[in-house]
């Protein structure tokens, strides 16, 4: 049960395509779910629940980018802009359809719509990917940000009921009617459950999708486009599909941001967010499903940990370190990212796999 050191012998197609291949993996998965959703909310305070919420939000967006970059090999710097599209679609729906507020089924409507709007925008900005590759595609998708900024600013007055010029909209607290009970999602813990559910759902969907024909086509495109074409993979369709799905995840991530802040403003979705998503995916490990989780946790928690564990205790010893930290925070962050790319180019996930293998092969080291 504990190891498959002698090889994995599958006797059915289902077992071959399973996500959790050993009993230990199954235990770890369900145990992780129990810890995350039963134990953690009881034990952690609001501060850490809020940090974990930020991680869930980041995970959804990072999984989308991982599909696009890790599995299909298309660099995209537009995840933040697609998230903005999703977030604004949520706010606009509440603005145009006041009947949505307080109805128990609003989440069933707003979340898929946010994803769909994000997917649409993503597909539009994915069109250049047919002709353009690599670095040039990155710059082409970078254009998504100013274009979406301009669109939101100029389209918003026409779309909102009041037609005001402000570029921010409020979002009310969602009400969820599960049939047997209906409650308003109010506190950090409520949001934790909602966001965690969405993140796990997104992860499972992505993990299953990449094991299908579509996933294999993406991997073929990533590895060698010409060879994929000769085998009969329609580049255009699959690349656009990758963009659309990655942007769907980004749209849902944007909707989660909207519900978290309860106000949507285009300042919250700058190029920084896209670059952060990229950093999450690269640091976590491209082309793996646990990679985005590790990368998101790293990117979200490192600044907080540095500030709380390193700077705050030193504040009484070294004067003005808090002010100093404000200036060097981004530098430290960038240095860490560079260090990771140099020392661990395959990401945290490969580090994790090496540790796992070391235990599996012990006492042998090869």
């Amino acid at each position: 049960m504990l190891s498959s050191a002698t090889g994995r012998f599958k006797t059915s197609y289902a077992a071959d395509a399973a996500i959790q291949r050993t009993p230990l993996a199954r235990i770890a998965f369900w145990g992780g779910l129990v810890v995350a959703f039963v134990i953690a909310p009881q034990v952690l305070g609001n501060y850490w629940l809020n940090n974990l919420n930020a991680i869930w939000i980041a995970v959804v967006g990072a999984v989308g980018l991982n599909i696009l970059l890790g599995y299909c090999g298309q660099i995209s710097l537009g995840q933040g802009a697609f998230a903005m599209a999703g977030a604004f679609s949520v706010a606009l729906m509440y603005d145009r359809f006041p009947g949505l507020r307080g109805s128990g089924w609003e989440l069933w409507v707003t979340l898929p719509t946010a994803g769909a709007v994000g997917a649409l925008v993503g597909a539009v900005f994915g069109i250049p990917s047919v002709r353009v590759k690599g670095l040039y595609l990155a710059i082409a998708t970078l254009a998504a940000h100013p274009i979406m900024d301009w669109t939101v600013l100029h389209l918003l007055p026409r779309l909102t009921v009041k037609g005001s010029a402000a570029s921010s909209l409020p979002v009310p607290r969602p009400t969820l009617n599960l049939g047997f009970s209906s409650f308003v999602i109010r506190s950090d813990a409520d949001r934790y459950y909602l966001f965690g559910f969405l993140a796990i759902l997104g992860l499972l969907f992505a993990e299953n999708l990449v094991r299908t024909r579509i996933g294999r086509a993406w991997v073929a495109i990533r590895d060698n486009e010409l060879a994929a074409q000769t085998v009969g993979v329609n580049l255009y369709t699959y690349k656009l599909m990758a963009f659309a799905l990655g942007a769907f995840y980004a749209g849902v991530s944007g909707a989660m941001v909207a519900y978290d802040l309860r106000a949507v403003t285009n300042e919250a979705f700058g190029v920084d967010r896209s670059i952060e998503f990229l950093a999450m995916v690269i640091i976590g490990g491209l082309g793996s499903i646990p990679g985005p989780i590790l990368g998101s946790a790293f990117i979200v928690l490192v600044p907080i940990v540095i500030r709380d564990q390193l700077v705050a205790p030193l504040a009484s010893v070294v004067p003005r370190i808090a002010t100093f930290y404000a200036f060097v925070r981004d530098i430290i962050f960038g240095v860490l990212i560079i260090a990771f790319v140099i020392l661990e180019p395959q990401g945290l996930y490969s580090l994790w796999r090496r540790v796992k293998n070391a235990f599996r092969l012990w006492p042998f080291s090869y």
Partner: protein
Amino acid sequence: MLDENRYWARRVRRLSRRRFLGVAGAGAAAALAACGGGGNPTKSAAPAGGQGGASTKQLSTVAVGGFVDRTGAVANIGNLAGDGAKDWVEYANSVNLGGRKVNWDEFNHNYEVDKAKEGYKKFIEQDKVSAFLSFSTPVTTALAPSADDDKTPMFTPGFGLSDSADGKKFPYVFVGAASYGSQAMALLGYVKDTWKDSSRKPKALYMYYGNDAGREPLDLIKAQAPKLGIDLLSTVEIPATTTDMTEQLADVKSRDPDFLLTHLFGAPPALSMKAAQKVGFPATRMYSFVWGGGQYDFTVAGPASEGYFNLQFTAEPSDNPDAYQRLRDYWKKAGKTEDTKKTGDVYYTRGVFNAAFIVDAIKAAGDKDTLTGDDVKKGLESFKDNKLYGLSPGITLSATDHGGTRKVRLYQVKNGVNTMVKDWFEGPQPS
């Protein structure tokens, strides 16, 4: 071939993990040591510094959070305002101005909503603040719903949502100084009053920073200008990342407005003055909102700032308000020298204003041992014509009115000195 391998092998070895970490560790240690030495004589406002005054009952320390932007788009304002606030809190703690010790907690959000959310959570959950100072309008918009939820008063003097003057809409947001809407109405009223030519309507043009803060009074200006008989030629948005405004000012010059109302902050105010001089648009026709008129902007623009009008919501340092006198007495007693480059800038004064506002709110909140946000809210709503040691025209707050005051002062740069042109006045109420 073999030589090539050896060449690269040697270099790869240099990049070994241990060396890298050793160099990084040494660099970090050096950086830490560097930030320890040097710096101005004012210490950070830890409660340990400064003895408490002769209070009969020692109430427990209250934590107050303050968003201060030392980096980012408005770092020029943030650095000075942060220092001003720190100095005032240090003084206030030494004379027990707030009735209890105030622990001022600074957080830098770099003008970004994400980091602001993180900092807000830190304030509420970890530091357990009883009130906090917001900074930047987009952040205010994003955090206002949360502040209402967590029942913690949020201070937004001179910026933020004009709507938040309504105490019922935003029960925990307090403005305390002229909001953007009040500033806009004051300028429009001034335009209407000073326009003497009866043959035609005055032409105005509104130039604003391309974000929520700049767009905040846009609707109001568009609606009210025709009602006051002002011909609003157009509104020009300045992108946040602009480095040169010659094109926009050339366009403005071609339209030839009589009054150019600018709502810019950060780098753009100085850029606007320099560009205006370049294209030959007189600075005497430029009227800036409150965040475009600090000594920093005048210094950067140089002679191009001559004649530039600007609104202020606090007293200027050159007016020598009571607050400054108190600070100077305190510094003399403590043996510190005043950094006139900092104190001579109105952004520093605004930092002092922010801190004075909060400390007075703490005082008004009463004698309970631990203060909750609701206590501070009640204390604030009891403010009656509080002049904040000469800094404010008089803040009056109530449960329904969180605006405090609509008054502003108009200054103009004459011979390099920002001189008062019109004392506290307010614009007409929007109709």
